[in-house]
């Protein structure tokens, strides 16, 4: 169990990246750290590994503060974002290196044996005696991952470990990583930009914004029940359609369509709608093609095929909105469609981002 409490980090140049970040990770859990570029994900990992000291706050492993524990005693392995392999060592030597230093030093034979295991896992057998500069970016990344896994650490920190891999290999290695860390019960923090990766890989996702964790939840919860407007906007691809609507009696109204509040589930309201204007968020998959009881009708201006589904663009309230439909519905650009709304799955936020429904 890792507990991060009220963590602050102010850099020498007075820039405050982490502003009282709280996060807890259970043993053996795979947590994805998700957030925009520059929000402090790498900084957090560096602090966890002990390579950087926080300005204030505490980090506890199993209830004990580790702030004064040097990196080598934290039983952590780390794959850096700009992982650097040792250029003068072969792939095998790079993977063996962590086993040949430190207090649990293995003999050359043992280290080699274990290194071979993980080289196999990462499919690097062919390159065993090559120097890193002879490998592609993705292969190098695999070496870095192997060199981390080989330590069989209690905690594994991966800072965007897959960003140089092609789509297929990416998928494959992330599955491998998941299977491995799960079977070895390694607590893993996985930083990624790719929300799809986060959604498919993790037990939990922590979404970081402005130096805080804004939501820590299972992938499903974070997708279906965003804590606030930021999370709602961040998660989902294509992203959630947002409309500014005005409250008028029991309805939310806008130029092109209205929502009757009585159609919404009363128990899902988190607060009363005091304000005048609200953001209404509707994910593209919760617009429905509804020829019988349309909320509005519109023209398709663009069609994007993604596979079994396609994304249709249309204008609503003078903004482009998107709807996902099955590809075999064979809608084409210019067609008129009648659209309904799945009221169970819409969200309402105040203008400053608080979720009220």
């Amino acid at each position, binding site marked *: 169990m890792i507990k991060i409490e009220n963590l602050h980090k102010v850099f020498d140049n007075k820039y405050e990246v982490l502003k009282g970040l709280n996060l807890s990770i259970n043993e053996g859990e795979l947590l994805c750290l998700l957030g925009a570029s520059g929000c402090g994900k790498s900084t957090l990992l560096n602090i966890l*590994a*002990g*390579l950087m000291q926080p300005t204030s706050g505490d980090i506890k492993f199993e209830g004990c503060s580790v702030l004064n524990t*040097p*990196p*080598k*005693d934290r039983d*952590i*392995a*780390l794959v*850096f974002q*700009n*992982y*650097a392999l*040792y*250029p*003068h*060592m072969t792939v095998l030597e790079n993977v063996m*290196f*962590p086993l040949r*230093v*430190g*207090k*649990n030093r293995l003999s050359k034979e043992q280290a080699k044996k274990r290194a071979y295991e993980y080289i196999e896992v990462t499919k690097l057998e062919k390159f065993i005696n090559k120097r890193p500069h002879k490998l592609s970016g993705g292969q190098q990344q695999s070496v870095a991952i192997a060199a981390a896994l080989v*330590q069989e650490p209690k905690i594994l920190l991966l800072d965007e470990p897959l960003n140089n891999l092609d789509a297929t290999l990416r998928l494959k290695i992330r599955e491998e990583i998941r299977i491995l860390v799960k079977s070895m019960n390694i607590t893993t923090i996985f930083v990624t930009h790719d929300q799809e990766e986060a959604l498919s890989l993790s037990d939990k996702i922590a979404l970081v914004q402005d130096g805080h964790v804004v939501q820590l939840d299972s992938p499903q919860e974070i997708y279906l029940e965003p804590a606030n407007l930021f999370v709602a906007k961040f998660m989902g691809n294509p992203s959630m359609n947002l409309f500014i609507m005005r409250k008028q009696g029991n309805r939310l109204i806008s130029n092109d369509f209205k929502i009757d509040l009585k159609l919404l589930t009363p128990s899902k309201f988190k607060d009363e709608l005091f304000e005048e204007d609200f953001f209404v968020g509707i994910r593209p998959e919760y617009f429905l093609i509804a020829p019988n009881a349309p909320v509005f009708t519109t023209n398709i201006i663009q069609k994007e095929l993604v596979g079994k589904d396609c994304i249709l663009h249309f204008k609503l309230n003078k903004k482009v909105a998107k709807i996902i439909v099955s590809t075999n519905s064979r809608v084409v650009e210019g067609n008129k469609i009648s659209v309904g709304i799945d009221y169970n799955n819409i969200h309402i936020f105040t203008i400053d981002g608080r979720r009220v429904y």
Partner: protein
Amino acid sequence: MRKSLKAWFLLSPALIIIILFNLLPLARTVFLSFQSSSLNNSHFIGLENYITVLTDSRFHQAIYNTAIYALAVVPIGLIISLIIAAILYDFKKFQVVFEVIFFMPYIISTVAKGSIFRLLLNEDYGIINNILGWFNIMPINFLDDPEIALLTIIIFGIWSSLGFNIVILLSGLRNLNSQYYKMASVCGANKFQQFWLITLPQLLPIITFLLTVNCINSFRIYTEVYTIFNGKAGIGYSAITAVYYIYDKFYVVNRYGEGMAAAVILFMLILIFTIIQNLILRKLTRR
């Protein structure tokens, strides 16, 4: 064909300069080494100059001294430089200040350095002997004892070589990715392992370069001897070096042919040594 003509044309200024100032003197040196030693009435005398030089016990002394000097100054100088550079590198705060201090000797003329050294090493009022006195060590006659003359030159040589070595090594260290060390410290590698397994192997190309440069410089040592011993090569030529021998033959005893022969021999020795050294180091860095 026209392309290569153009290339030769563009290269010609550089080529002319190289031929004029590098190849011609070398050819003339070789030519003169086969001539009798008087300049106005010289004639071909075959290998006579070479035989004279090679059987001259003073030449043996000169080559011996030069070899000992190189063998001592190059490795010791490099190791000390490496240690100082590694310490300086960790010492972020006044790094630049110290770098300048260590580099200073490199830009000061050897003559000035030699004079300073003469003062420091003086038997009666030099600082070094003064300090040694605090530890009850008898004053050492650095300058006028034929037994110690070579040691004096070696100490001076090591000290002189530090500046350049440290600056080059520091720039090499700065080029190393800091992530190497972060990763190593997470794995639990201690400072010594980090240096031995990560820093040193990656500095090998730079060390190779410094080895070559330092060796060649050592073979050419002359000014140091001249300035420290006030124009002599120590008492009774005890600190004579190869280049000093050549100079002596040329300007002091006016045996031009013999001087040239000695120069050619030295040139061959340096050439062979450099080639062997490069071969060994290439093996080492390739593995």
